[in-house]
């Protein structure tokens, strides 16, 4: 049987075996042999306009599906451009495999044209990385890369492949096993600990579920729903976990943290048992850690042992895949129900009353105005059109926080944003990846006028593939979050916060061959968004919103829940 093929072709065969249907990239000198092999291979290569966006698009694909996203870049500048996306995937635990070209093995270390130490540069921003030294290793390494990226706590893996390895000829024989003796994946969770957790949950008078991105990574939404329903507990989802429990679920409170709701943060602070599922007690959630949830006993379930006790020492740690742990925990909770359900019923009813009271006392603000479009109004309208069903990607900043507060997500994998790293320019390219992954879905990307201008090159990708993405620019003429912090913490000395130039959206979109429009009147908002959604192709809607609106509530960095600022300061004296 003749199965002699080039390393480039072999790589594509490995990708096919891993179930890859498309990947995102940008060609260059040393990856030309790969692109020559792609020419007549069924795997689809999506040409983006910047390597960083290839990485973000692969993340969008992965975040929308749970499958491994793949991106590809050439050596040197191509590889270095991937770095931001790799760190982003690392911070948010997103499974991606990045393929980079490298100069031929004989030239490595000679400062060859477009040479960079990709293996060294990406060591600390990947879950693991590889450099393929010879063709014999290629297949094994590629399959190991996919396995590492997608198992355990997911993350980015990079495979650096020199040009001569792409060109070398060898025999393709499928690799069927992976052996990584040092790679420890903890899945099952300690049965005794899980049983103790179930008892602790029933013993609680003020139980509280704090669910994060781990629920989404593990596909444990159904188990989460059952848990909160059996015990009837309030639950919050973090920025990374929105959609893990449907936003329309009666037990869903909202998002906690720096810009979380009053009720979510008060609940976090006042509960007596906190069930932390697939979360990492991020500083943006906890505020000052010493003052966080002072009276709570914490049950912490995470697949990564290094997360246990990293920021908050749990009273009951469980290391395991949150889906499997919850499956077992559900059985224990059911078994214990008859003996325990009445015990704290009265205090739980009082707790719910308190939580509902907090929600009513300080709901998330949705102000509207007759003269200007309030950013919250924009989010509320997008929410109306989405009905909790659309994929919404965002950039980073004020629009991201308002989106997270006010748009409902009734399934996991709908809300896609750069949570841990907070990378501007993420929204549009991740929407591209998400739309390729879910062609059936309505995809909005909500971006600020700052982040949008970091990703403008990708308008060409959107246009050339005819992706029906609805690009909504929340344009306040500022780097809004920078302005908000300069106002609040730097004596209103606004420095480099104003963006006084923004292109004409109609002309800009028109230049790429699709529709665009700018609006600034509240009465235009609903119809303009509806028009964008009706449009079969891409649409760029530039929404000029009130320039000085700030995101509230806000727990300033390093502060505690009781230092929460609920709204803008009252004007001091009229004189």
């Amino acid at each position: 049987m003749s199965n002699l093929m080039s390393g480039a072709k072999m790589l594509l065969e490995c990708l096919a075996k891993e179930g890859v249907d498309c990947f995102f990239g940008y060609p260059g000198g040393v990856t030309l042999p790969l692109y020559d092999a792609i020419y007549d291979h069924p795997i689809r290569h999506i040409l983006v306009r910047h390597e960083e966006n290839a990485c973000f698009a692969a993340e969008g694909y992965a975040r929308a599906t749970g499958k491994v996203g793949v991106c590809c870049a050439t050596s040197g500048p191509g590889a270095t451009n991937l770095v931001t996306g790799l760190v982003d995937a690392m911070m948010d635990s997103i499974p991606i495999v990045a393929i980079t070209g490298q100069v031929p093995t004989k030239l490595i270390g000679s400062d060859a044209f477009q040479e960079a130490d990709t293996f060294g540069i990406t060591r600390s921003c990947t879950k693991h990385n590889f450099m393929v030294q010879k063709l014999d290793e290629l297949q094994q390494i590629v399959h190991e890369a996919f396995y590492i990226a997608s198992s355990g706590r997911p993350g980015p893996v990079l495979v650096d492949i020199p040009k001569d390895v792409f060109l070398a000829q060898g025999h393709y024989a499928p690799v069927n096993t992976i052996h990584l003796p040092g790679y420890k994946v903890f899945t099952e969770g300690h049965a005794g600990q899980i049983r103790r957790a179930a008892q602790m949950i029933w013993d609680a008078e003020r139980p509280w579920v704090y669910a994060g991105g781990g629920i989404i990574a593990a596909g444990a939404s159904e188990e989460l729903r059952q848990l909160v329903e059996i015990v009837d507990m309030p639950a919050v989802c973090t920025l990374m976990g929105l959609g893990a429990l449907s936003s329309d679920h009666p037990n869903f409170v909202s998002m906690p943290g720096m810009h979380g709701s009053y009720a979510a943060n008060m609940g976090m602070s006042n509960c007596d048992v906190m069930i932390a599922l697939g979360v990492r007690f991020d500083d943006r959630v906890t505020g000052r850690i010493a003052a966080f949830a002072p009276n709570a006993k914490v049950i912490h379930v995470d697949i990564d042992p290094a997360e246990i006790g990293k920021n908050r020492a749990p009273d009951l740690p469980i290391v395991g895949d949150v889906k499997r742990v919850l499956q077992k925990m559900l059985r224990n909770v059911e078994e214990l129900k008859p003996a325990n359900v009445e015990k704290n019923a009265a205090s739980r009813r009082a707790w719910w009353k308190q939580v509902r009271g907090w929600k009513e006392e300080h709901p998330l603000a949705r102000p509207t105005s007759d003269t200007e479009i309030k950013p919250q109004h924009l989010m509320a309208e997008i929410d109306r059109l989405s009905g909790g069903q659309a994929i919404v990607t965002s950039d980073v900043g004020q629009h991201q926080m308002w989106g997270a507060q006010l748009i409902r997500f009734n399934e996991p994998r709908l809300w896609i944003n750069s949570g841990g790293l907070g990378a501007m320019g993420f929204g549009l390219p991740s929407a591209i990846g998400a739309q390729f992954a879910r062609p059936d879905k309505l995809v909005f990307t909500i971006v600020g006028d700052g982040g949008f201008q970091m990703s403008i090159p990708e308008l060409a990708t959107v246009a050339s593939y005819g992706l029906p993405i609805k690009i909504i620019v929340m344009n306040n003429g500022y780097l809004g979050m920078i302005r908000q912090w300069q106002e609040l913490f730097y004596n209103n000395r606004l420095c480099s916060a104003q963006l006084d130039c923004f292109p004409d959206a109609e002309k800009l979109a028109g230049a790429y061959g699709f529709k665009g429009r700018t609006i600034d009147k509240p009465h235009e908002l609903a119809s303009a968004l509806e028009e964008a959604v009706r449009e079969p192709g891409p649409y760029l809607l530039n929404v000029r919103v009130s320039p000085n609106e700030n995101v509230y509530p806000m727990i300033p960095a390093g502060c505690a829940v009781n230092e929460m600022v609920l709204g803008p300061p009252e004007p001091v004296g009229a004189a």
Partner: protein
Amino acid sequence: MLQVISLLLENKPGALLRVTGLLSARGYNIESLTVARTLDPELSRMTIVVDVDPALRSQVIKQMNKLINVLQAVDLTETPSVCRDMVLVRVRTVQESRTAVLKEAEIFGARVISSAVDGFVLEASGAPEKLEEFIQVMRSYGESDVTRAGTVAMSLETKKLRLQPPVPTRADAKLEQTNGVLNA
């Protein structure tokens, strides 16, 4: 207090850098590091002595254990273990002190590696604190150059090595994807 970490890791390019990178990324300075092949040539044993805030020690060990190339990382600071260091000392000494130097060397169990008219090269091994004394004594006899090998440590307890068994690649995995992560 210094933390002593013993690691068993794959003998592969870049593995050392992954371990030390965890420390340098957190601003920790390595006091000593030794690494060499084990009986199994595919594995290396590494001993690191590093100044880590006590509250963060277990986090550092956990992060090391997460590295794909690391089979096991163990904190030996507060477990029964032995630590040894080796030192080469070149001491320049005058004719009259030669006998005294040799006598001192004997007390510390040091051996003469090289002898010349202007002095000796001595080799000593032992507990790191003992070698510190040895070096001080030798310096009192004259100008000395010192090369230390770094601490090597061994646990007195056998800690079970937990290794990941081989797994099938994706197309051969008939069941739900590994760990429920790929729940497309």
